[in-house]
């Protein structure tokens, strides 16, 4: 017990010195670029009978855009964590302690059942890891691929469907649709 306490105190002292060292790193500069607030789908098609261009938005999509715009001031969970150094440091410290004490427990426990439990934990971790890799692998091609046939489709009078990110920018300029066409 005494040895564990001394070890814990030494770890805490080491971590405290690390926190002071990181205190001298400059804050990241805030980004001023507009950020996407909502991701949805878009279909581009031509109609020779129409007199004017039309933008058709479903009620549900409009509501989602309005909700997303209303929440624009609220940062996401990930952003909140990234911009709270105190919480990041505390979370990191506790994660470190969790892994360290798990190691101590593993070293202390000589029972077969404990080893089985640890093996089960590792197995679950591996399954999650593999699942993550598989999911990322199946994330699909990059968005611009879907727009590559747009010029030909426009010539042929056919429709093209792809993803689009909605951005809200200051000012009263006209709406813009930026299509990610790559030169072949």
């Amino acid at each position, binding site marked *: 017990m005494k040895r564990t306490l001394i070890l814990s105190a030494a770890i805490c002292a080491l971590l405290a010195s690390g926190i002071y060292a990181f205190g001298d790193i400059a804050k990241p500069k805030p980004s001023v670029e507009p950020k996407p607030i909502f991701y949805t789908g878009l279909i581009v098609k031509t109609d020779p009978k129409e007199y004017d261009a039309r933008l058709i938005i479903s009620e549900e999509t409009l509501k989602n855009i309005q*909700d997303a715009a209303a*929440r624009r001031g609220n940062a996401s*969970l990930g952003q909140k*964590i990234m911009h*709270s150094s*105190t*919480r*990041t440091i*505390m*979370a*990191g*410290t*506790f*994660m470190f*302690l*969790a*892994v360290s*004490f*798990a190691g*101590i*427990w593993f070293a*202390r*426990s000589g029972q077969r059942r404990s080893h089985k439990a640890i093996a089960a934990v590792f197995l679950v971790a591996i399954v999650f890891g593999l699942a993550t890799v598989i999911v990322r692998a199946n994330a699909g091609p990059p968005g611009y691929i879907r727009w590559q046939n747009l010029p030909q489709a426009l010539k042929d009078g056919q429709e093209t469907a792809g993803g689009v990110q909605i951005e809200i920018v200051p000012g009263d300029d006209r709406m813009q649709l930026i299509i990610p066409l790559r030169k072949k």
Partner: protein
Amino acid sequence: MERAENIVVSAWPKARARDDRRVSAAVFATILIVSACLSAALASWLPLQVSIVSVFLFAGPHNWFEARYFLMRLPARFGRSRNFFIVAFAGIGLLTLAYISLPALYYANIWSGANWPNAIAGWNTLMILWISALVLMRGRQKANRDWFWVLPIAFALCAFNWLAPELFSLAIVYLHPLVALWFLDRHLRRTKPEWSKTYRGCLALLPLLLVGMAWQLSRTSSLADDNGLFWRITQHAGADLLPNVSSHLLVSTHVFLELLHYGVWIVALPLIGATGAIWSVKSIPIANHSRGFPKLIGVILICGLFAVAVLWFGFSANYTLTRDVYFAVAMAHVLAEAPFLVRMI
């Protein structure tokens, strides 16, 4: 320690004798399933209304039953468990005081509420470490038990808590009602082991009901929280923290779990004799012991009934304010569940 354990257990044979002439396991299971389905249906159909009515009717009485149960589980002499109970009561007192202080300082304009997530994260960390200390102390009292694994889990929970303190607090709101089901499980295992298997089978229905509610309500429009009370209820269920989830689903789920919680404390545990005859203090070891305090316990229980009446009066006079005050003060009973549950493991 031995004496304390014997005294607590001594109340159970009476309960067992009384229960023998009561319902069978099949009837018990039917009652549980029907109650759970009815609660889920009510909570899904009228979430806000059921929330208001259930808190009004059952919040106070369930706290009284819980307090009586804990008094019954309190040994007459602490013996080897003295340090455990010192840490337990100190933790309950200090953590409750700190929890009430945060909004009190804010409303008194002493604290601006800056760094609110950090304050909440700090409080949650202290709570986790306190529970871990109790588990470790309990583990030492049991032979051949190494509960050191509690520490890595506790630190991992602390890490998650510091990443998302508000979500961690919301998790406590949803998990707390389930603790009552755990108490019932432990109690059945000791007093009516023949019902324990049936009960655990019925517990399997709980995730099915929750999934069914999520399936039915996830696409419903959010509840109208256009007045202060409705807004508080939706916020309490996490509508602000989970904006992409229908507040109807959130409130219904929370109300459903709360109904189960109230049902266990007010109906299930008293019916199986876990709290003894409610008007008698003889089943409470600390009152029945030769060097016990029967008058003090009697006064505490009567004062508790008076507090329930005051709470009902408060709800009648100003429901919103009383609800806010109740949910702040009620943290004490949430914390009190931890040491008594740890003692039953």
